């Protein structure tokens, strides 16, 4: 995977001095939050705009004409021309881009070339499915990662720590579809306790639906587990060895209080920054997992759109996925402000 840039954790506690305390700090704190959020809110449309231009330019390179792709080889040239005119595929690149952008912003995303349905209906429906699967995976992932990381930190550098590290790192290196296939063979074929297809004939029963989604959700979560558990481990070890932890113990707080008020809070800071990045990719839909389990999510839809050269669907799908990923980053920033007081002070300077 790409090494995603960490969030702005530019905290240098030593250089803070006395300016970060008292009323002075309170004022800075309130001026810092809007600046940070404002920056992020400006960044989102900018990144999306760049991406949309990039895609539009790439689409121009696609061999073949969208009308011809939609209508097939037996349509007459007049029919193809008419279809192109109806769908806004005429004029110069700039005209077409502006036409598309205007449509996208106002909510008319065009008609899918392969399905002949409005792209917005298709994408938003699939997005719901992807969000559901992503949320399920997230619910499984976070407690597991925190538990494993805590176990590792508690037995640091001893056998449980090393065994968990090696197991998780090997798991992270294996592609999702390989893990998924092995899980399928074990749980669906040998043990036969879970269904092979994630969206088979389950009807409306939410419990059965959840059961069918369990394997894809576990597969999705396993891909992120290793790094996340590692983050929890590092964060916990750092806060256990920190001065404030010693102070808290020495001033007579109970173990529960120390863990709750000092260790957990500080250990979660690096973890939350990573969660934000993962949340975006998890919710955007994993094309691989969705394809393997036959789950009707957004990722699988975008893969189909690419294979069939459905430009309309591809562009709208990519924009929605990008938006979800960027909004997840924004959410992380907000969460940061709640958890880490240092961000509030530092950003104001």
């Amino acid at each position, binding site marked *: *995977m*790409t*090494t*995603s*840039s960490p969030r702005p954790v530019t905290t240098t506690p030593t250089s803070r001095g006395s300016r970060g305390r008292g009323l002075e700090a309170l004022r800075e704190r309130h001026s810092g939050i809007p600046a940070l959020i404002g920056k992020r809110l400006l960044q989102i449309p900018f*990144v999306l705009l*760049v*991406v949309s231009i*990039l*895609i539009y330019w*790439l*689409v121009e*390179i*696609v061999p073949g004409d969208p009308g011809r792709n939609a209508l097939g080889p037996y349509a007459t040239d007049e029919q193809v021309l008419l279809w192109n005119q109806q769908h806004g595929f005429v004029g110069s690149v700039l005209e077409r881009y502006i036409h598309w952008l205007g449509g996208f912003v106002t909510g008319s995303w065009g008609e899918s070339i392969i399905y002949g349905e409005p792209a917005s209906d298709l994408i938003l429906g699939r997005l719901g499915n992807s969000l559901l699967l992503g949320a399920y995976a997230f619910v499984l992932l976070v407690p597991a990662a925190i538990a494993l990381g805590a176990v590792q930190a508690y037995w640091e550098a001893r056998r449980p720590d090393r065994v968990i590290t090696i197991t998780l*790192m*090997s798991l992270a*290196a*294996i*592609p*999702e*579809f*390989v893990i998924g*296939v*092995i899980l*399928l*063979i074990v749980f*669906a*074929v040998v043990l036969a306790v879970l269904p*092979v297809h994630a969206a088979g004939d389950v009807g409306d029963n939410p419990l059965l639906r959840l059961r069918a989604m369990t394997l894809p959700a576990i597969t999705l979560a396993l891909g992120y587990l290793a790094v996340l558990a590692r983050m929890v481990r590092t964060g916990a070890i750092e806060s256990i060895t920190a001065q404030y932890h010693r102070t808290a113990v020495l001033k007579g707080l109970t173990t529960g209080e120390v863990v709750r008020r000092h260790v957990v809070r500080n250990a979660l800071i690096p973890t939350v920054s990573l969660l934000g990045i993962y949340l*975006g*990719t998890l919710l*955007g839909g*994993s*094309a*691989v997992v969705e*394809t*393997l389990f036959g789950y009707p999510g957004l*990722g699988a839809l*975008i*893969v189909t*759109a*690419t*294979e069939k*050269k459905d430009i309309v669907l*591809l562009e709208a799908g*990519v924009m929605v*996925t*990008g938006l979800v*990923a*960027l909004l997840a*980053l924004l959410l992380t920033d907000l969460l940061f402000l709640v958890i880490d007081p240092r961000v509030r002070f530092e950003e104001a300077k």
Partner: protein
Amino acid sequence: MTTLAHPSAVADPRAVVAPPSSWRRVLVALLRRPTFTASVVIVLFWIVVAIGWRLFGVDPFADTGVRIAPPSAEHLLGTDRIGRDVLARLLAGAEPALQIGPAGTLVATALGSVLGLVAGFFRGWVDTILMRVFDVFLALPTLIFLLVIVGAFGTSTLVLAVAVGLLFAPGIARIIRSATLVEMGKQYVASARMQGESRLRIIVLELVPNILPTIIVQATLSLGSAIFIASSLSFLGLAAAAPSPDWGLAINENRVYLQGAPWTVLAPAIAIMSLVVAVNLIADNVKEVTRR
């Protein structure tokens, strides 16, 4: 009057940072690690198979006449739905598996190193623009980026290698940039400047030898991920086409027969797993040994 030694003779970085004996020390330390040697054996095995599978007398496309046969003495890994020998396809599949990933890593390392060096050396607006561009790239979901490229340029090996290269280049560039910034603060760069060495000369002859270990570590770390991504693409049917013995494609084609013929899926799954885990273990070992 005492003759002062030429500045570059005193502070020649190549002599200090990575002399041949240091490389030998790294190699010896690596060979002492069992996970490293085991991984190298596995990777070498797949490389030999990828290059020479045609010499083993196997045919990945021939119909043996028996369909969906479980593993036996005749067909060690059984046959698939149209009677092809799974072992033959497994061996032949090593070739595509070792094409896109390594080629993409080469592209990524070359591009990422050059951009990182340029950003770190010139700083200022060059640095700012490059960093913003990398941010946009890193904000994009990995697979979506590849899908768009494949949608536009097709699925030839060259396109996929360049796409994987573009995908990994920003990550490498960031790290090379920070390594360059560290080196820029050192004395030898200042003395090279005072001697009037050209910028190109400083970058190629002074900086590159010093950040070479960082570049090598980044390249090995990227290789595992690149093979991972390439196999995911072939699983999605976006890299190899139907009769190809590609492992990812084989898993996708045979997953329908999972209940009746699990060996057709399990064999390529284990093959991918062994290759990717071995490459990652090599990278981890190299990283740990060079860090000291």
